[in-house]
């Protein structure tokens, strides 16, 4: 039997950042990934490091996370294409403008600088935007990075500091072992450890349920589309507050876009196909907001498998039934920005026994009583959303 202080189950963004911060504190960490690091939700998302419009109670975590993103090159020796591009949140009518205003007040309450932009200024500063836009808010601190490369880069950095990264090993059983745990894999690996981090994304429930607690998680995917490279023009990421479309251009020229509703995903068959109607829908919505892109060609689409919860908030924190087990899963498509911060919080919890970053709202215990269903659930998914359902 191998020994470690901490076993991390799941090599996505959460697991790799947790490994990085834990090993930096001198702890012995083994990360076990059933496939390869960063291949699921962490690797296929839009790459937005958006601070505008987040859940109010998540701002301290988000801002802590953004500071880590801003230092990523010095921390892990790789920029992962991090760019402080800014984020433009746009509204097409008065109701949406009002929504922007609400978001802006919350963000400002947490110290974020939000610029309010009227119709004529919008046209002057971003003349390629469509006629139909009425107002926008702009946050200069929002950024983007390349999700495909982040988790592998963080995992390598953790590995250099002494973390052991085990790929292609699926955790089949976690059981109590003295005061700690024994973690077994399908490759015959058995690790004895004091703490376990459950960062298994859409596959996290079985580990929680082994210790008598659960969450109403379901799987879905974020359909993403990309055009061929065209001359670089769009610097900020631009998002319709209605959720119809979000897009950004990378300096090499490709325009990446996405939009609701999300796609079905099957975590058992490991498939998340993008139905062509979703692609057409996204194309139509993008042309509306950015008509200058109408002749650009879509060359590729993809999706992935993400875990969602009905209140559209993640599970972060220590298990209520098994002390020493720490959950961090179900990020509802919003995990990329907070990922590094969650890794740092997990390191606090495990190494210090507590964290200064408020995370009470994300406790798994909240599912013991009736959970309020987010109104996002109605417009971000094809009704009714459920695990593994074919469309």
């Amino acid at each position, binding site marked *: 039997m191998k020994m470690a202080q901490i076993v991390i189950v799941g090599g996505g963004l959460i697991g790799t950042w947790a490994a990085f911060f834990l090993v930096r504190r001198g702890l012995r960490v083994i990360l076990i990934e059933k496939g390869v690091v960063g291949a699921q939700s962490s690797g296929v998302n839009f790459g937005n490091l958006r601070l505008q419009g987040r859940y109010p109670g998540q701002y301290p975590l988000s801002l802590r996370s953004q500071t880590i993103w801003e230092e990523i090159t010095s921390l892990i020796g790789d920029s992962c294409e991090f760019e402080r591009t800014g984020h433009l949140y746009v509204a097409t009518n008065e109701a949406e403008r009002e929504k922007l205003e609400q978001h802006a007040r919350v963000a400002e309450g947490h110290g974020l600088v939000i610029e309010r932009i009227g119709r004529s200024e919008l046209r002057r500063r971003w003349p390629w935007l469509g006629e139909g836009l009425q107002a926008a808010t702009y946050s200069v601190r929002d950024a983007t990075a390349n999700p495909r490369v982040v988790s592998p880069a963080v995992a*390598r950095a953790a*590995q250099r500091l002494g973390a052991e990264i085990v790929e292609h090993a699926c955790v089949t059983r976690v059981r109590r072992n003295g005061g700690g745990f024994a973690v077994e894999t399908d490759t015959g690996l058995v690790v004895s450890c004091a703490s376990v981090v459950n960062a298994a994304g859409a596959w996290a429930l079985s580990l929680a349920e082994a210790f008598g607690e659960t969450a109403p998680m379901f799987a879905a995917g974020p359909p993403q589309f990309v055009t061929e490279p065209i001359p670089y023009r769009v610097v900020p990421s631009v998002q319709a507050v209605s959720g119809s479309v979000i897009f950004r251009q990378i300096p090499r020229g490709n325009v990446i876009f996405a939009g609701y509703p999300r796609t079905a995903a099957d975590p058992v068959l490991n498939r998340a196909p993008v139905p062509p109607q979703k692609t057409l*829908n996204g194309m*139509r919505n993008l042309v509306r907001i950015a008509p200058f892109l109408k002749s650009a060609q879509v*060359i590729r689409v993809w999706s992935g498998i993400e875990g969602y919860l009905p209140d559209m908030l993640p599970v972060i924190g220590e298990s209520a039934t098994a002390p020493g087990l720490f959950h961090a899963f179900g990020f509802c498509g919003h995990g990329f920005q907070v990922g590094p911060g969650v890794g740092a919080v997990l390191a606090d919890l495990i190494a210090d026994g507590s964290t200064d970053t408020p995370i009470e709202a994300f406790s798994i215990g909240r599912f013991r009583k009736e959970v309020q269903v987010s109104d996002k659930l109605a417009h971000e998914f094809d009704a009714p959303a459920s695990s593994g359902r074919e469309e």
Partner: protein
Amino acid sequence: MAEVVIVGGGPAGIRAASVLVEAGLRPVLVDEGRRAGGQGYRAPARNLDLDMKGLMGTEAAKYARLHGLFASLRERFDYRQGTLVWGIHEKTLHILADGIAGTMPYDALILATGATDRIMPLPGWTLPGVFTLGGAQVILKDQGCLIGNRIAFLGSSPLLLLAAFQYHKSGASIAAVVDTTPFSAKLTALRNLAASPRTLARGILYRAALRRAGIPVIEGATPLAIDGRERVEGVRIRYGRGRERFISCDAVAYGHGLKPETQLAELAGARFWFDPVFRLWLPETDADGRAGPDLYLAGDGMAIGGADAAEASGALAAHALLADRGRPSPGQEPARLRRQVGRLRRFQRGLAQAFAWPVAQAAALPDETIVCRCEAVTAGDIRAAIRAPLGPREVNRVKALTRCGMGRCQGRFCGPALQEIVAAACGEPVADVGRLRVQAPVKPIPLHAASELEQ
């Protein structure tokens, strides 16, 4: 009767349509091309007076017969020219015609999507003036244009001599034909080649005609690089005995045979197997082309077999479709077609052994050589990613981390080379490093294509 759709207007698609029409159906024939004929039997642009009889050489009669068959059936099926099928989902084709996206539901589908060039990267292969062998033929047959003033034909392919012969007949100045396959390799494979002596004879005929015209036909040489500053200035090769030679030219037609276009088959639900002779992933079918419920494959898009096999397998797929739907088959008996297709495909397997895909060239490719043209990813980028800690050992993962295969062509051209480079760098058999997955759109579609549709 149910809606039967055929995708592809080459010999396989046209023959499938003719069998279905004979059986009393009115299929839809969706053709990405503007004119029927596919690639091999491509007809020239309207009002262009090309000597197709001369260009098609020994195949002139077949060319005329196929186009005659198409013309005679034209009113009896629904021909959709200039229509790209870019996606398939839940028994509906997603199409693009005249810049507008649309859908086409089907009950049964015959995919006759043909083949494209297989190319092994080479230093300089992305210089202006380098064309694929198939591309060079398309330009000639479609537009009556030549790819340059002094042309080198380079590679390893039965198409090499044919393309050179066609260019020669069209008055092109040919610098050399460099066949990387040693003549001895062709002899070794002769047992399989003898399965279709007529095709074999055709190759010998072209070779002799080119030599008679004083064109150097070099066999068993290794291509080292295509040289040039702004564009092609020449080709560097090494003879079997080690001497190097520079051949001056301003255009190069380059290729290593054909690979099936299987993207739509994958989207329609076909499963794949690794063919160790072609070293390609091919769709699984039975002898008649059945690839799944209501899904039939035919022609070079199923397995490389050439034009005659394409015609016969198109007919065979149509017969299978009729039989599965309980309809009587007209005329031709499937057993004879099956034997014909089997014999022709065996011949092509022989050719694939003779005109070998240069696996060693992939492993020896200099690091700075571009592999993925769309994304400018080099062989060195791929190898560095694999060597890194936690490096990828599977082609889709290599694609995710290096962008190789992520661009406009979605790996249709760099895919075969990518799998060889990954296999060599990982020290694994090529069958074990995976297969690039497909998502719609299989070819680029403009954003405005969706805007014309009703929400």
